[in-house]
């Protein structure tokens, strides 16, 4: 297992270099001059533009910009935003916000998703099962922005149960609505997945053994069935963490969550290369590490799986 992990870590290096290079080039070919756009409809001062272009290295050929960027990156320097702030500072403000949102969303996803799935799995073929099926299909088929505005309209504007937007991201009550919307889609998948494995494992040999031993039903379902059925679900949730951190652009936008998604969106709008590449670099790292952890977790959860 140690050798496996080492090999996977080595594989990350080309992936990392490749993705950052790709993003770097994509930012570079965006049309227009982001420095000049800082003056809005007003004329930009040429001397100032030249000075800023030089400061951000935009007057260098793109390969040199990339090498400089990578060299700085290994010294922990993510560069500066056009507004003159350190990108690392901007990211350390935004990441905790997104992380909080992600954790809350994952919690909702686990509780509701596994709960619904287990219920449907135990009642496979009955009305409850069909009900959950219809509900989850409905959720999966609605785009997230529709879901977002709809949830805000119903839960906040009409019923007044929850605050509609986030003003203070440390306030969990305010974060609940976006977290709920963010969790909805994955929650539906988790419910489907749990339901299937539950229904399947109900017929497994070890279940019959447990029943024959005369164990109480609570223990059979709660320990034997649940533990064995959760293996695929946990790996699914694991990949979701990475997705939530990077993919909350729409939800963060709707509910005014000043997290990574919003930061990335604004940076793309203003073609602020340093911020875009910085955020994506961190996201790439996060997703690579999470994937490795999940793969290793597989072996831990299911002793039959071996890595060499």
């Amino acid at each position, binding site marked *: 297992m140690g050798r496996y992990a080492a090999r996977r870590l080595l594989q990350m290096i080309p992936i990392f270099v490749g993705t950052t290079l790709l993003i770097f080039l994509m930012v570079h070919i*965006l*049309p*227009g*001059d*982001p420095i*000049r*756009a*800082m*003056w*809005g*409809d*007003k*004329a*930009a*001062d*040429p*001397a*100032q533009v*030249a*000075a*800023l272009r030089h*400061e951000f290295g935009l007057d260098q050929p793109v390969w040199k910009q990339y090498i400089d960027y990578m060299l700085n990156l290994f010294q922990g320097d993510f560069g500066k935003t*056009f*507004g*003159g*702030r350190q990108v690392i*500072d*901007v990211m350390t*403000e*935004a990441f*905790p916000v997104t*992380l*909080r949102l992600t*954790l*809350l969303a994952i919690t909702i996803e686990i509780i509701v998703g596994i709960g619904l799935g287990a219920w449907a799995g135990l009642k496979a073929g009955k009305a409850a099962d069909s009900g959950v099926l219809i509900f989850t299909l409905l959720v999966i088929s609605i785009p997230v922005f529709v879901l977002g505005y709809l949830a*805000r309209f119903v839960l*906040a*504007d009409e019923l007044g149960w929850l*605050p*509609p*937007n986030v*003003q*203070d*991201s*440390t306030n*969990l009550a305010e974060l609940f609505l976006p977290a709920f919307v963010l969790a909805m889609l994955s929650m539906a998948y988790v419910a489907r997945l749990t339901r299937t494995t539950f229904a399947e494992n109900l017929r497994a040999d070890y279940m019959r053994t447990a029943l024959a031993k005369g164990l109480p039903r609570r*223990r059979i379902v709660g*320990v034997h069935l649940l*533990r064995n059925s959760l293996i695929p679900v946990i790996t699914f949730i694991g990949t979701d963490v990475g997705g939530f951190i990077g993919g909350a652009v729409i939800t963060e*936008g*709707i*509910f*005014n969550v*000043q997290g990574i998604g919003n*930061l990335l*969106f*604004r940076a793309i*709008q*203003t*073609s602020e290369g340093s911020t875009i590449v910085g955020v994506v670099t961190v996201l790439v790292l996060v997703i690579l590490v999470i994937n490795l952890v999940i793969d290793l977790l597989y072996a831990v959860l299911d002793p039959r799986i071996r890595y060499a």
Partner: protein
Amino acid sequence: MRGATHAKWAVCAVSVALAATACGGGGSDDGAGIVRSSWGDPQNPIEPANTNEVQGGKVLDMLFRGLKRYDPKTGEAQDMVAEKIATTDQQNFTVTLKDGWTFSNGEKVTAKSFVDAWNYGAHIDSKQNNSPFFANIEGYEDVHPESGNAKAKTMSGLVVKDAKTFTVKLNEKFSSWPETLGYQAFSPLPESFFKDHEAWLEKPVGNGPYTVDSYTKGASMKLRAWDAYKGPDKAKNGGVDLVVYTDNNTAYTDLLAGNLDLVDDVPAKQLKNVKADLADRYINQPALIIQTVVFPMYDPRWGKPGMEKVRTGLSKAINRDEITKQIFEETRTPATDWTSPALHEKGGYKAGLCGDACEYDPEQAKKLIEEGGGLPGGKVQLTSNVDTGSHREWMDAVCNSINNALGKGSVCTVNPVGTFADFKNQQSNFKMTGPFRSGWQADYPLIQNFLQPLYATGGSSNYGKFENKDFDRLVREANQESDQAAAVAKFQDAEKILADQMPAIPLWYQNGSAGYSELVSGVQLNQFSVPVYDQIKVD
């Protein structure tokens, strides 16, 4: 009970994780009299000479008082820190300061506070976006050369005489220069700004009616009324909390939900509902903004003599009334000159100066375009960025209007540019082949600012490269005029040349808008569409 222990452990882990990331928050100090207002993340750090957009401008307007300040109603430049600004030749000015002004850290506001701030703002090494505002002070090219390094640390035109007096020498005569000093780039700066710049940016210190209580970059800023403020416009509320919103629709829903007191930009989508939602708590008033369509006069197909008929014809083919009603819900007013009603008559606004040329008349339009030899290649293409400001919608409407008037099928088409940065690049590199959008927000309520930068030869924002000797001469003469009324008259004469030549079609004047909650009163916008925060009362 192994399962139960595991579950307990998991719940515990999650709650610990949530609690851990949740720390550092909580404990809002919602005292009485605080205005909660929407905000956008300022583009640059908040310092006077580096802020050229409205979000940072909001903060500066609360934190600083300069030599002059524009009356929010009339737009007149009134003395604030200045006792008087005297000149005999319209080129050499002597500025005298009032007694008693201090910064909120206790430092006195002296002549040096202004001279140091201006020298800093102008210097190329300070990399301040607003440095061109100091360009008419003598010695600017030494501290801010077109290329290469600065030759001097300070501008020779600025001399401190004593603690209360300094003199300014300009490059050339400019009679209304004192009236430009209400712009925030001309604010004074305390010593602490230069001693510890980083610390100052974390918590800016000024001489205005508010002080910064706390600033969480990217999220919010809490400003509190400064009790020891001695100026004439002491804050009527306890403070202002600015909350960052990335989307003005979100801010608007928060206003309706009672989580916000003031939204200073009502989103276009909500204009249909705003009367029902807010009744009379909605402000819609002229701002110093005009939207025009500029012709590339550098392209002979549009700029050659005789084409003025075609340009005027196009202007007459646009049904401004209809478009401002249908698309903008009357947040724009059809333009009849090249300035703005927010200037008022005294400042140089003259309704109807454009005359016939800006009136919708499809018959005349058709005739004029034919007389002028028709559209170049039989076509016209409108260009603008379409990432903001409903530009796509009105461009479609303008083209429709032109096509209907000319009756030759779709001769007018729209060329949407994806990003502002790209559009700006094409515009400043003079690569346009047809008319393009140009929005202009004046920096100070002066007719000069609506004309000289945009249409004088070599003007900083003369993107169409319009060149006209008579226009240049009239502008020069106007700047030398010591009497304000005479200067305005000269500028209006120059403006009449625009009506004849039509290098830019005035479309409409843009309004500023705001909505506010039942908890506050006395809300007004100044001519830059910035709320006058110090006048807001919290009930």
